[in-house]
């Protein structure tokens, strides 16, 4: 009787929802607890620490107000590090979109052995960036590196790539892009494969082939894949840490640091935990703002 009543009441509510009781919400309590303990609490206490001069080891720390935030403006390394963070983000995004889209288009055509080709191109993406970084190091290393050997064969001198800031930054961007180009490729491939065959057929009937078809029909349909891939690559590049640590460790000097690597250097090497916290807060806000702006911008860019 009570059961019948339940069902009746449920269906009267329209949705037939048997989950009126909020007891089932207990299911997400452990998850929330972990998130609050290990992400939210650190985030908030990090904001607190950013107003102190804590060294990371002593119990003593003093409130210093906005001093740490002001140091960002006087820290001679800081502008270059913020610039690097954007270069890693934007550079990787550009390279991965061009290469990823090109690969997806080619692999969507009738190509022999495309399963194997796709598998090989995706392969580096699933190995740890630090491990891949060590392997990429053998391309650019001075004495035994592959690139310098090719230069020697061509009658040129060896170059100490990692002694030069510009080369180092370019290498980090290229290596990060190449390692993860498979991800962009797969996102675009998925977009291409869900494309409605009828739309494409209709386009052909209307006389759209080759470039014309690609530009006016396929590309606009790829807008959602583009948004996904751009946001993923941009944020991934701006958070870049592992690859820099293993390839240059921020050097020469501080010149190839990203905000992420600089935080760890300031905290553990310079023992300025307060300042490191303030950079952490800065990085967090930067990522939130960039994510928001890019999502908004790409929303408008709804081709068609």
């Amino acid at each position: 009787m009570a059961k019948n009543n339940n069902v009746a009441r449920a269906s009267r509510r329209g949705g037939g929802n048997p989950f009126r009781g909020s007891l089932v919400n207990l299911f997400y309590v452990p998850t929330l607890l972990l998130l609050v303990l290990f992400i939210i609490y650190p985030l908030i206490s990090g904001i607190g620490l950013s107003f102190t001069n804590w060294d990371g080891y002593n119990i003593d720390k003093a409130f210093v107000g906005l001093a740490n935030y002001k140091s960002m403006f006087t820290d001679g390394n800081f502008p270059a590090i913020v610039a690097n963070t954007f270069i890693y983000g934007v550079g990787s995004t550009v390279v991965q979109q061009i290469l990823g889209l090109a690969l997806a288009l080619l692999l969507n055509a009738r190509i022999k052995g495309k399963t194997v080709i796709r598998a090989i191109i995706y392969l580096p993406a699933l190995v740890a960036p630090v491990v891949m970084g060590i392997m990429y190091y053998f391309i650019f290393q001075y004495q035994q590196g592959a690139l310098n050997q090719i230069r020697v064969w061509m009658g040129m001198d060896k170059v100490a790539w990692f002694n030069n800031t510009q080369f180092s930054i370019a290498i980090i961007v290229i290596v990060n892009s190449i390692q993860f180009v498979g991800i962009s490729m797969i996102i675009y491939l998925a977009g291409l494969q869900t494309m409605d065959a009828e739309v494409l057929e209709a386009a052909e009937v209307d006389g759209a082939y080759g470039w014309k078809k690609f530009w006016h029909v396929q590309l606009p349909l790829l807008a959602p894949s583009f948004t996904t891939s751009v946001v993923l690559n941009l944020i991934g590049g701006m958070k870049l840490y592992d690859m820099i640590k293993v390839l240059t460790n921020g050097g020469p000097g501080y010149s190839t640091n990203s905000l992420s690597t600089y935080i760890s250097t300031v905290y553990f090497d310079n023992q300025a935990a307060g300042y490191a916290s303030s950079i952490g807060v800065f990085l967090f806000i930067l990522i939130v703002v960039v994510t928001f702006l890019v999502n908004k911008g790409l929303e408008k860019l709804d081709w068609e």
Partner: protein
Amino acid sequence: MGKKQSSGQVVYSRKDFQRGRWAIYLFLGIVMLCQLLPFYLAITTSLKPADDMSSALIPRTSDLAWDNWVSAVTEGGILTSVVNSIIVTVCTTILVCVLGAAAAYPLARRTTRLNKFVSAFILSMMMIPPLSILVPLYSFLVKLNGANTYWGVVLVLTATNLPLSVFLYTAFIRAIPRAIDEAGTIDGANKFQVFIRLILPMLKPVTATVVIMTGSTVWNDYSLSSYILTDPEVQTIAPRVASFFSANTNNLGIAAAAALIAAAPMVIAYLFLQRYFIAGMIAGSVK
């Protein structure tokens, strides 16, 4: 004129395609070469003794320095760290699946205002860069005596991997007809029983995705793991290989062998589970 295939693969007209065919294969060949080159260089380097200064491009043909591999295992403690990685990865993945599936159930089925907020809150956690909370997180763990412990790193990585898992499970459960839950309720089961007996068994496909995504992220994690685990006895593979590499810049052969050992489990898993990796990647990218 292009021919249409079942999955809508009409890209080029056939004439266009034939004309450019060799260029396409050349381009794909170069990209594949780039992707395989680092592995090749690591292999050739790992077989050269420290005094062989020849380029990594040229493989050594005789007197291969297999002892690099032995040193990587004995001096580098690579095997210990593989075991550590297995422990940390398995525990984290189990927790992420169990807690993620449980959390997703009310979020998918009871879309109250509170639960919508909770969903958005959990999802927004994915935006936080791990390094931005490094300082307070590390000092918090030290206070809890959780630095250099398995449970410390497992709880932290569970927290950072849960949002994606909750997101994937929620989307999947939403697609399961509510009629199933209702039928269960009519048969007298309560919500907990409905979840355990009816919903849970249906979550296998999405669980495969979550396991692959979480498993590979945890196995490859370096940024947080390298600070939480500094003692080689408990260190996982990525931080171990990285610190072994920076300690052996004048004997690249050992570092190369260590890197290859670290990469092997992921590459082997990928060979067998390729389809799941790619499906998981697509599912994960929608965040």
